[in-house]
């Protein structure tokens, strides 16, 4: 039963390009609200703080991700939640 629901969602995300649209929307919002620049600054700071040794991308990801998630504005989260709700409501409408 659980699998079929997932299939439905996958089918729905596929046919309506919903996944693409949501991803694009979040990307735009994060750039617009300055989140990307903040994260970029945080990365730069981490690199300059680490002195002579240049950290690898994986280390940066591990160090920055937690903070970066916290910096996402609530409005963006709310909008994303709303968009996902809209998509999931429609899933049952086109159920096969």
């Amino acid at each position, binding site marked *: 039963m659980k699998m079929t629901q997932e299939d439905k969602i*996958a089918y729905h*995300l596929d046919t309506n390009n919903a*996944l*693409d649209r949501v991803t*694009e929307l979040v*990307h735009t919002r994060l750039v617009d609200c300055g989140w990307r620049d903040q994260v970029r600054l945080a990365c730069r700071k981490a690199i300059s703080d680490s002195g002579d040794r240049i950290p690898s*991308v*994986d280390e940066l990801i591990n160090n920055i*991700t937690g903070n970066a998630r916290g910096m996402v504005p609530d409005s963006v989260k709310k909008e994303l939640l709303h968009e996902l709700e809209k998509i999931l409501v*429609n899933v049952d409408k086109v159920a096969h």
Partner: protein
Amino acid sequence: MDIVDEDCCQHIEDYKRDDINTFRVVHAIFVVCTDEKSKQTKLKNAFCHVCQRLGPHLHACLHCVFFGCHKHIREHTADMKHCFSMDLTYGQVHCTKCDDYIYDSKLDEIAMTNKMSAAKCNKRLLNWTSWEPLEEDRGDFLNCNPKRICITPDSTIGLRGLLNLGSTCFMNCIVQALMHTPLLRDYFLSERHKCNGLPGTCLVCELSRLFQEFYRGQRVPLALNKLLHLIWTHAQQLAGYEQQDAHEFFIETLGVLHKHCEELSPQHSTISTTEKITKCASIIDQIFAGGLQSDLVCQKCNAVSTTIDPTWDFSLDLGPVSLGGRPPSSLIDCLERYTRPEHLGSIKCSSCQSYQESTKQLTLKTLPIVVSFHLKRFQHSKEVRFLPTKSSLNVFFFIQKEKKILTSISFPEMLDMTPFMSRNKTSSSYPIPPDNRYSLFAVINHLGSSINAGHYTAYVRQQRDYWYKCDDHVITRANLKEVLDSEGYLLFYHKHNLGYE
């Protein structure tokens, strides 16, 4: 931008020799989705093979069929001694031996080819950076191009006065508005118009030449004699030396431009035969035309007949509303009135085949990129006059009366068109796009009391936040308040967010 040593990993050479095709295919399908089918493949297959999740940082192993999230792909490559994996969000390749992401010019080249052939342009993947010439080339380039224009907030480039050729201020102000339409400017300055017509007959070519004149940095006023002549030959009702209505001129000009774009551009014939066009290819249509939906509702059987017409003429009534309402005082009022259901009287209903009371409602199905509102300040009315004569025979005649409505209509700098768009009650196939905001970039004003007399001036926006008042050959700096306080006859708004097709 830091300059990265392009070929920083030695381990990739062997891989490139034997397996480069794997990279090409995986990148095409899972990173850029070059066609619709690959999108399905991606959705069905791209999840972590260990924890079943979609991320974060989903990678594909470039040696075997394995997908993994950030944690599990590292475990996989370490366990299996596989060297390369690729991040599926951006297409970066990770080398286990280097323990970092690597850059390689050959891989970048393949990635770029894939991105260019992607089914849909993806902002995340095509992030163009500005090009900087190398230090040693710079001198050569500067010598080759001794004439340079530098744009600063104080520069007046793009501003040019226009001589009045005897009551041609109606043309001057429309040309100013067109010259400062951002998207039209980008189109013409990137020389996109390729003409097939006879030299000297095409209005689009003339407009193209005017853009060159406006943006070459000269400050001497221009005379638009050639443009005027072309308009006279192509739209004969405008020929003559008297003052014309700026709105009529604008609509006619767009019409002629549109016609020339369609007839004279070489790609016209090929497009129309190979593809079904839903939207016309002419730049004028793409920028100015919106889809106006008109719903005719029969009051008896509630049947709705819907038609959608492309239009670039949005004329808004200003006169008092018939049923005791107040006359509109703002642009929003006018638009609400424009999109309100309107009684039409008895009309034959196509579904119940009888004459019934019907209502008609106009809404916007698709929004144009540039919307120009025409405030109908000129009212045409016929008046009967009697001539007092000595005989008993009354002599009367009609006179055309032009009345100008001087009501002040306030208009915002930023306008949201969402309330005036068509709501789709039945299906959600065309959801209303989330951002329908517009900003003001040109206003044309009429000074004087009648349509056949008076003077037109234009306010235009240049360089985002600077406003200028164009009064024929005199251009002065203005501010936003002055613009918003002006009377307003034609208002030009540009869309903020240009959606993908």
